[in-house]
């Protein structure tokens, strides 16, 4: 099993290198950091602009491959370069990373778990009302853009607060300013802020996973090995869970890595709508500010996220499918 996992890790690493490099090269050639300095009033002398851009490694007069080499060299030493406002990208990312991760991880794990459960249940109860409900739910949710879903949840939360007469759920920021983040009250406050934005991601993940899990489970339900399991005397639920669900989960593991990338994009929307200062917001700002190094930094972050998710799904794959372990 170790060689399999090592091979997969190498492969995933290659993918991250490729996608981050392409993103860097595109950002370095398409974004115009010079415009940000030349547009100042009074316009600084050309030599000053060049010197500043050189220091940031964003001078478009330097060949792009030279800039890429300098950036990649810094990356190997763990240095992502400096933002267009001359702040270290590393500091910015480490400050914002957990804000987004909180959203994405909660969404991914709760959403995947509930989605798998709902999908499997729907397949077992095929064409009964619970199955139809799930099918309609997935169909409708996957037809609504994440933005609209976010606005709906936000306004529903505000409506709920108004109906209750006190603030149960918060709709802006990740915590009320001035609260002690380590105290019990601070923790409760954080959770009250987290509920609505992560609910958006959870709902999307349930719709996505539920739909595929249902189909995978339906394929398994008619199989011979399930009948054999029943014939040897296993109870229906035992046979369905240890033999049916386990097999139906194998193709699902593949989707896990996809789901992470999808949820990151989803988190970009919820961050904007709910006023969280995470990686999604950082990315949008960086593109608008022509901040090449920050854009590359966020792409690397997403790449690593997908790498970890991909590796986790390989682990799950190896654990579920005995053929891999041979």
């Amino acid at each position: 099993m170790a060689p399999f996992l090592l091979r997969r890790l190498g492969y995933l690493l290659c993918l991250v290198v490729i996608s981050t490099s392409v993103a860097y090269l595109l950002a370095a050639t398409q974004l115009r950091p010079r415009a940000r300095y030349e547009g100042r009033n009074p316009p600084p002398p050309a030599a000053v602009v060049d010197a500043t851009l050189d220091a940031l490694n964003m001078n478009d007069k330097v060949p792009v491959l030279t800039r890429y080499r300098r950036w990649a060299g810094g990356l190997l030493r763990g240095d992502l370069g400096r933002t267009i406002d001359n702040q270290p990208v590393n500091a910015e990312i480490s400050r914002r990373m957990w804000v987004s991760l909180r959203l994405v991880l909660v969404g991914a794990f709760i959403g995947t778990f509930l989605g798998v459960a709902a999908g499997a249940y729907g397949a077992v109860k095929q064409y009964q009302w619970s199955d139809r409900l799930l099918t309609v739910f997935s169909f409708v949710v996957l037809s609504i853009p994440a933005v609209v879903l976010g606005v709906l949840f936000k306004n529903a939360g505000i409506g709920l607060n108004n109906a209750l007469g006190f603030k149960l759920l918060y709709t802006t920021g990740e915590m009320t300013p001035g609260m002690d983040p380590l105290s019990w009250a601070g923790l409760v406050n954080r959770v009250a802020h987290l509920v609505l934005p992560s609910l958006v991601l959870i709902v999307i993940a349930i719709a996505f996973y539920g739909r595929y899990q249902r189909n995978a489970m339906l394929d398994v339900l008619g199989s011979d090995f399930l009948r054999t399991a029943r014939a040897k005397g296993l109870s229906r639920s035992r046979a369905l869970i240890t033999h049916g669900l386990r097999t139906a989960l194998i193709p699902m593991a593949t989707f896990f890595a996809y789901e992470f990338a999808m949820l990151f994009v989803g988190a970009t929307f919820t961050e904007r709508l709910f006023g969280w200062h995470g990686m999604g917001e950082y990315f949008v700002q960086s593109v608008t500010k022509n901040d090449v190094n920050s854009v590359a930094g966020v792409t690397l972050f997403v790449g690593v996220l997908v790498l970890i998710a991909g590796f986790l799904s390989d682990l799950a794959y190896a654990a579920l499918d005995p053929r891999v372990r041979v």
Partner: protein
Amino acid sequence: MNTPGTQDTEPTAYQPPLADASLLPEEEASSRLQLVWKRFLRQRLALVGLVVVALLFAVAYLSPFISPWQYNQLDFNAFLEPPGGSHWFGTTQNGFDVFALTMRGMQKSLVIGLLGALMATALAATVGAFAGYFGGAVNTALVTLIDLLMVLPAFLIIAILSPSFRGHTWLIFVGLLAAFQWMVTARIVRGMTLSLREREFVHAARFMGVPGWKIIFRHILPNMASLLIIDATINVSSLILAEVGLSFFGFGVQPPDVSLGTLIGDYAGAALTFPWEFYFPAGLLVVLVLAINLVGDGLRDAFDPNTQGRA
């Protein structure tokens, strides 16, 4: 992204019946179409979807002739007016008519969806079939291209490229959307081509000296017509959704052009105070996408009644 489940076997979620439509007499070919059409008509939801799409299409393009206000007209006597009177969907803060804006946006979204879907499906069919039919170096090059594009995070890449198409035509944006939408289908097409390539009618054509590209377009792709039609339909709705996401952040359609995405982006903040600004474009968008998805689902069942449930 390649994971062990999909590495060696091509995804074969959908297998159409292998009848060579191009070789059948005219009559039989048309009777197959009739059969599919009849099966489609039997599905009430899909039919409702089709009617809704057709209606929205008609309303979007006919509205300039029936609406008292145009999308670029300001009404200085009606700022932030709720729906009613001559402003059917109300007005915005500047006095724009929300109905006219929404219809204008829907026109753009529909065009983006249809055009992009056609491009994506055509690209998928061509690349997949060439890779599968010719094999060898062509196959290696095209499969590498497919894998590479699948690795890139589409949303981030299009956002990075957005400053470079600002001020240019929105067609570049449609092309970019399509460029990140075709890879999965191309893999399926490639897998199907691999098996079609060994069939007698393809051999016969090859031995008669028909060039490869002609065989692909005359004999191989017509055999996948059902897959391609379904794929194009599903692509329309995914492209409309992708456009909304990118335009929300200003990475998609650029002003002065209006799309459902830019409207949703501009008025998402007003959803609570001036709901008509947000809920009309957003609601119509959801109805449109739902209807297209229903049609896609119905087509899938009509072309292949053996598929279980909804993939």
